């Protein structure tokens, strides 16, 4: 709902300011978001969530590049030192869409692959292409994707 008024205000802005270009629309979008954040409480929560989602996307891009380089290295280096593992990642109480998103992001990142979620939804089984320290690998997922997803969705 607030998103709709944000879009409407952005269109209004670009109609008023001059030529109707994607850049004016984008500028209008951010300016009206700022206005919404200043005017109302739900507007502020909405703006915060927008930035949390943007942060999640940025983090995903960073992780993708990092993980791709890591997997590329495993692929061409010696197999003797490669130690795959299936680890149980304990989950915070997440909703179903959040678990789906988390599982998808983990699988999308090279080197990790979600196999299953336990029936009580408190554990996720992830196949790692290589682990040095199991608890550190689990912690990396919890403090990375899981925390950021929770910030973006609630």
């Amino acid at each position, binding site marked *: 709902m607030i998103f709709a008024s944000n879009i409407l205000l952005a269109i209004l802005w670009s109609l008023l300011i001059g030529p109707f270009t*994607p850049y004016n629309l984008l500028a209008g979008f951010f300016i009206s978001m700022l206005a919404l954040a200043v005017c109302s409480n739900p507007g502020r929560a909405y703006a915060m969530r927008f930035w949390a989602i943007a942060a999640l996307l940025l983090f995903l891009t960073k992780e*993708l*590049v990092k993980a*791709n380089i890591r*997997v*590329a290295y*495993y*692929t*061409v280096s010696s*197999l003797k030192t*490669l*130690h*795959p*593992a*299936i*680890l*149980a990642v304990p989950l915070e109480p997440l909703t179903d869409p959040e678990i789906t998103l988390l*599982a*998808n*992001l*983990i*699988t*999308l*990142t*090279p*080197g990790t*692959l*979600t*196999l*299953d979620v*336990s*029936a009580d939804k408190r*554990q996720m*089984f992830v*196949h790692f*292409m290589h*682990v040095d320290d*199991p608890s550190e690998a689990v912690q990396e997922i919890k403090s990375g994707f899981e925390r950021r997803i929770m910030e973006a969705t609630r």
Partner: protein
Amino acid sequence: MTIINILTVFLVLLGALFSLIAAIGLIRMPDLYTRMQSATKAGTLGVACTAAAAALHFKDTIASMDAIIVVVFFFLTAPVASHLIARASYTSGHRLWSQTIRDDYAESRTSGPDDRPDPEDLSL
């Protein structure tokens, strides 16, 4: 050669390099799970780089939108497919490689009540 051209060439080469590494992984990796890792996903950055190069080269909005849509749909579908293939392989008894150091999944499947439907019941 403008800076855009150089960037385009760089992105195409990078995309090709990641795709090549994915192909090498498909041959070199020891078991199904690690092979899936490199085959389905070393490709993600490869596809993203190639699509970005196309968007840069054609320089119009339609081509850029196409490139973005290609990447978005690839990112949406690739994990679902690889998750399902891996889980199906595990369930049907594909073994893990001998150098695998831990398997928490096996423990959870043997201990505790199994509330999954009996595979016999799923006959179509």
